[in-house]
Each structure stands twice: as C-alpha cells, then as structure tokens.
C-alpha cells in the first residue's frame, strides 16, 4: 500500500515534469497549501489502509475537500490581509507527522507480530 502510494507520487512527478502546463506565479501560494492538504490526505489514507478501516469515499472527499478548503483559506486570508493559510499549514503539517508516526508504529508492530 505504502509502496503503491509512493510509486504513484513518483509517476505523477514524472508526468508533471513532462506536462506543458504552467500557471501564474501568483497562484503558487494557494497551490502549495493545497499540495500540503493532499499530502496529508494520502498519508491519512495509508494509515487508514494499515489500520484496515480505509474508506474510499472519505479518502476522495478528504483529498479534494481539504485541498480546496486550504486554497480557499489562503485566498480569503490574502484578501483580508491576515495570513490564514497558517491555519492550514499547522493543521495539515501537524497531522502529517502524526500520521507518519502512527504508520511507522503500525508497520513495525506488524513485522514484530509476524
């Protein structure tokens, strides 16, 4: 599962490098926050899969919903002059490490039990 996810990310990176798509640099802040949200979703998905309670609907809605909400927050913060995207960075960044810690524990426990 984990390997599959990483292989997917790798393939995506390769595709992205050769895709002739660029966007305005002014959107890069929103996209970077959205990327953080997506990364968090994928880690959450891996963790859920290891815990054997993976739910496709929750995963997909979380992936897109979190990304859109994070980008939206960054946009609104820009409009208001308050760096609201910090909220997204702290929430998703914190959860990313938490998920990663749980994934590590699950993997090692599985290996020990075998």
């Amino acid at each position, binding site marked *: 599962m984990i390997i599959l996810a990483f292989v997917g990310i790798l393939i995506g990176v390769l595709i992205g490098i050769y895709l002739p798509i660029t966007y305005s640099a002014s959107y890069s802040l929103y996209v970077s926050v959205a990327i953080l949200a997506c990364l968090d979703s994928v880690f959450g998905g891996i963790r859920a899969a290891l815990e054997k309670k993976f739910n*496709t609907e929750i995963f997909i809605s979380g992936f897109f919903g979190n990304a859109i909400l994070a980008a939206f927050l960054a946009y609104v913060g820009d409009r208001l002059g308050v760096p609201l995207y910090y909220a997204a960075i702290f929430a998703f960044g914190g959860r990313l490490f938490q998920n990663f810690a749980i994934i590590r524990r699950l993997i090692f426990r599985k290996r020990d039990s075998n």
Partner: protein
Amino acid sequence: MSNQNNSGIIWLIILSILLGVLLSLQMKQNIDDYDLVSLKNIQMMKNEINNIRKEIDDIKELTENKKKELEKLKTVIDDEDEDISELLQDEIDKLKLVSGLEDVQGPGIRIIIDDNKDEAVVGEQINDDIVHDADIQIILNDLRKAGAEAISINGQRVMSRSEIKCGGPIIRVNGRSSAPPFVITAIGDPKLLYAAINAPNTHGWLLREVHKLRVEALMKDNVYVPKYYWAEQDFKYAKPKKEGE
C-alpha cells in the same frame, strides 16, 4: 470488502499520481526569492510603478516638445519669406534672461537688513548684533523658495556663481565688497516674497524678533535688478555634456 479495498487502492494510486503532478508543477514554477507579499509591499511597489510611469510621461512630453521645436525650425528654414536669424535672436534673448545677462524689472520686494544699532547689546555678544553672510544666504534661499526670479544684493545680481563671503563688517558678493545696510531686491510674487521674510519662524523674522536686527521688507509694484557682470566668463572645468555620450 475485498472489492471495496481494491477500488480504494486504485483511488489511492490515482490521487497519489495527481499529488505528484501537482508537486512537480509547483516545483517547475521555480519561484526565486519567494517572499511573503504584504499589503505594504504591494503599496510600495505601486508607488514605485506610479513614479516610473510619471517619469515616462515626462520624457514623452519632453520628446513631444522637442519635436514641436524641430518642426518650427524646419518650417522657418523651408519658408523663404521668414528669416531664421530672427528666431535665433528670440532664442538668444530668452537665454540671456535665464542666465541673468539682462537687466530685469517687475513686481517684487525690497528688503533692508542692517546691524543692531542699539546701545543695549543683546546677550553681550557682538556676533549676535551684526548681519552675517550665512543670514543673507538663508534669506536668499527663502526668497528663491518663494519663487523669486531675480535677486540682487546692493546692486549685485546673485547668480549661480555668486559667492556670499564674510569679510568682517562687510560681505563680498561677486567679488565686490558690500557694507551694511544690505538692500536685497527680489522679483517675484510680492506677497509670497514678503511672507518668506516676515512670516513667523522664518529666518527674517528670527533676525528681527530675536536678534533685534533691522529687517524691513517693502512690497513694490516695480523693482529693478541689474544684469550679472561675469567676473570670469570662461568655464575652465565645466564643459557641456554632448547628447548620447
């Protein structure tokens, strides 16, 4: 359950690929020096842009003016009835006026500045009671700021090369000595010039009210300022800068 799990894996892979695409696209942006853009930065940049735009407009206007001048000269040259020397004479007169080589007259003010003649000495300091070259210079600057077009001190026209030098009880202007009382004549808007000398906290006011010097300003309908006599006409060091150099 197995079916659900399979589709989950497929989705996980698909979305991972999407994440990878986004990642690499973002990296491809190669944002150098990515910085937080605050409202203040934006405002500053806007100001900068406005200033540069203004500059460009000024330059455009300048080229427009030069084009018109060129056009005028061309028509005069082409037209056989008109004489180009007339036009050139006009130009020379204008330049003479600008460079102070012409006697000028017009509305303005006359200022008389004299030492404190009273017996009672303010602060027991003789230096507080006499007019200094620096006082004159500050007053001249005040007058220029108030829009004075021509200034003379005791009949000496003040131009770009005029020195105002302390010589003990006298001052030296254009290499010639002047004794107090100093009569400064300036052409310009009389009310503005008068205010530049008499308004509270100007240097003229300070001299009169604090140092008790004699500072009198008179608004005149017509004053006369003589032309500038060049002591040294040649410019040894300053040479005109050619265009495009």
